[in-house]
């Protein structure tokens, strides 16, 4: 994705679930408890206010930021911890998800959502997946699941949004295509 030189730019990117597999050189955060929510003063931006830049189309070349991959991997590893050999349903596998990513300053906001093409037409799911805020050094700052309200109870929310900044970066694509392009 193009970089524009400074952290004032926000980018919206959609990445297929398989991307994290390729960011193997980053360190991982120790497992977070299921009830962990992190800093609830962090407010998520709307992930669909803009169209996403789709990353992974066939026969194109992409240059992906290492910190972006690190952030997506941290989020996906938390959402679906790697290494388990137990049998999983289709929606229990990272390749069944896409990640929609917005960078705002030093924070990556990531929406992990089901790839509608991944698990066939057997079921319909609402509010599955999760939202994450991940720091530029790969630490998960906030986890939100379901249809959680914004942090309105916090007196002075720290919205990581930057007024006037350009928004969004979302990598989204089919797994097999992404796997071949990274």
């Amino acid at each position, binding site marked *: 994705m193009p970089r524009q030189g400074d952290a004032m730019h926000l980018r919206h990117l959609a990445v297929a679930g398989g991307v994290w597999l390729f960011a193997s050189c980053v360190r991982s955060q120790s497992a977070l408890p299921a009830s962990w929510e992190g800093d609830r003063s962090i407010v998520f931006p709307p992930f669909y206010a803009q169209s996403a830049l789709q990353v992974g189309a066939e026969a194109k070349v992409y240059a992906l930021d290492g910190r972006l991959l690190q952030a997506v991997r941290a989020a996906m590893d938390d959402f679906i911890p790697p290494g388990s050999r137990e049998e999983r349903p289709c929606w229990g596998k990272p390749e069944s998800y896409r990640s929609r990513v917005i960078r705002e300053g030093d924070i990556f906001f990531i929406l992990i959502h089901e790839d509608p093409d991944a698990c066939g037409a057997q079921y319909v*799911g*609402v509010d599955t997946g*999760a939202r994450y805020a991940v720091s530029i050094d790969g630490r998960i700052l906030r986890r939100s699941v379901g249809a959680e309200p914004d942090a309105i109870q916090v007196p002075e929310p720290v919205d990581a949004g930057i007024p006037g900044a350009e928004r969004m970066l979302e990598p989204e694509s089919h797994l097999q295509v992404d796997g071949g392009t990274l």
Partner: protein
Amino acid sequence: MRFDPLRMPARLEGPMPGTPLFDTAWDALLAACPLILAQPNASAGNAGATSFDVRWRMSKEYCAWLYYVPDERYALSKLVESSDPTRNGFEQGCRAPAFVEDSRYPPDSLKYLYFLHNHPATPTNLSERDIAALAKMARIHGGYIETKAGRLPIGVIAFYSNSSAASPTSCDGFYEYTYGGAEVVRWTPDEEGHWQRTRAGTVTWTSGTEFRFVPTR
């Protein structure tokens, strides 16, 4: 109902026990709202209330189908609660089979009008994932169904309650988005019980699966 995540059935059973066939979809929606919100932990109430965090962590989403039957009436399926503690222990949301079986009718005679669920806390709105789910529904069932009332777009509904105290009358309103629409609509009853419609966001589709959703703030 709960399913083994590895063995989700192809069809969800209907009707919901104790529910009749409804003459209108609206009647079915108004019946479903308190039924869903009265389920255990279906409402954590308002996010500004005391001890909300505890209730939120315990809260659950339930989902069901509102479907149209050959008798030209509307029915509710059984409810699904699909949280899966065996996987990561924290994911919420609700997954249900894309089809319903109702022993009163041939399986392929049913038409799917609304996918219903609750949002356990307020303030809320339809989520982006709800709208994405509707896009998947449209791919499975088609975007419209033919009824006695004419051709209707299929939709997704999120019921909510401002109170964490479950009661048979818990229903403070719901959000609706129908296939192809430009708006997410919020329905709330006024003091006299008349339902009022307000815009809760705008939706613009850029392809069959990509859309922009700007919630009303």
